[in-house]
């Protein structure tokens, strides 16, 4: 067992974990943060995306011990204290950027990272930025619209393509 200390969604946590425990397992099984989901066995789907020290990562492909001392934000940490949705969450709801919703936590976490780096991305930049997130339902169209909506570039994009 190895002792780890980290901050998850603003709360300090400390635990003894097996070194082989994946960060996503730690979040779900130890902390009960089941908002972060596992969609594949190959690190391809991005459903498990969280932020580690401010950058998006696939939490199925990081060991919990590698996150020791770090700061993790999951989908459960995005909304405000009063339950006010994060603007990106709001945009996915508004634009119907989901169907079954399984990919959504990862899509939203990756979108928050993408917009932090590039606040007004082109459609191509959005598609490339979400390259590591797979969706089996939507065909991506409304996901891209949701990101544009969150970025406030919807009008511009529609105007340009009209």
């Amino acid at each position, binding site marked *: 067992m*190895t002792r780890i200390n980290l901050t998850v969604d603003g709360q300090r946590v400390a635990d003894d974990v*097996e*070194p*082989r*425990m*994946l960060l996503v*397992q730690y979040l779900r099984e130890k902390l009960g943060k089941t908002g972060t989901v596992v969609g594949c*066995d*190959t*690190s*391809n789907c*991005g459903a498990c*995306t969280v932020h*580690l020290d401010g*950058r*998006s*990562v*696939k939490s199925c*492909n*990081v*060991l919990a*011990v*590698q996150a*020791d001392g770090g700061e993790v934000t999951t989908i459960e940490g995005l909304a405000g204290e009063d339950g006010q949705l994060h603007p990106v969450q709001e945009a996915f709801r508004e634009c119907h950027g989901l169907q079954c919703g399984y990919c959504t936590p990862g899509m939203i976490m*990756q979108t928050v*990272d*993408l917009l932090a780096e590039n606040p007004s991305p082109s459609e191509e930049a959005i598609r490339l*930025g979400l*390259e*590591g*997130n797979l969706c089996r339902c939507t065909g991506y169209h409304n996901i891209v619209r949701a990101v544009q909506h969150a970025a406030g570039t919807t009008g511009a994009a529609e105007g340009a393509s009209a």
Partner: protein
Amino acid sequence: MIPAAFGYVAPTSVEEALAALAEHGDDAKIIAGGQSLLPVLRMRLNAPEWVIDLGRIASLRGVRDGGDHLAIGAMTTHHDVGQDPMVHEHALLISKAITHLADAQVRHRGTFGGALAHADPAGDLGAPALALDAIFVVQGPGGSREIPAADFFVDLFETAISDDEILTEIRVPKYGGWGASYEKFVRIAHQWPIVAVAASVRLEGDTIAEARIGLTNMGSTPVRARATEQMLAGQPATEEGVAAAAALAADGTTPPSDLNGDADYRRHLATVLTRRAVLAAAGRG
């Protein structure tokens, strides 16, 4: 799936890491960003007894100006190398290749040194490192040594790093003013290339003065397209001039045959992508 159980050490200096490696020897595996190693451990294709994490060694991170070269710390993430203005200015080919490598999340964790040490023949960094004649610095019990890129890649997933050594730094000579392009052919997003071509050229007026070309996934290691490089030197940077030279790109290569394409298909692809890459690198794409 989750990995088989292992012991874990997270040294904070290269010396400590080397000591751990000496102690655990064959039973140990180094983890850098874990983006290639963890999938392997999770599939239980490998089950080391010890995992030595280089993630806490601050001295292995970052890009340094070494005068006539850039020194890229082995643990610098793909994202940080890709964003680095010095890399963009002096080794544009590397910046270009990184934009095609994996996806944002993987680029946030995966490291420059880890990808090169992994030596996947379909990996996107080997061909640029070879084309630019990078020097690999490894440290072992007896001190450090330098390995030229031409000697670094030995075979599939095999490099000249010994079991008791750690890759610490990759030195890339400066290529200020050279154009560059990385042409990667894939079937699906964020995946390894079927074939890719890394090309960097120096123009004098409308003439290609020098060209450096590396091929990805055209053999068990990255390879140089030497015949094309030689023919390009002194050629006008035009479609015809470049096409004739690019037709030689697959000469002497031994590409694999797999579900994505047989060897002949890859040879053809290499010539097409080389033409595109050289023209794009020359600003004619």
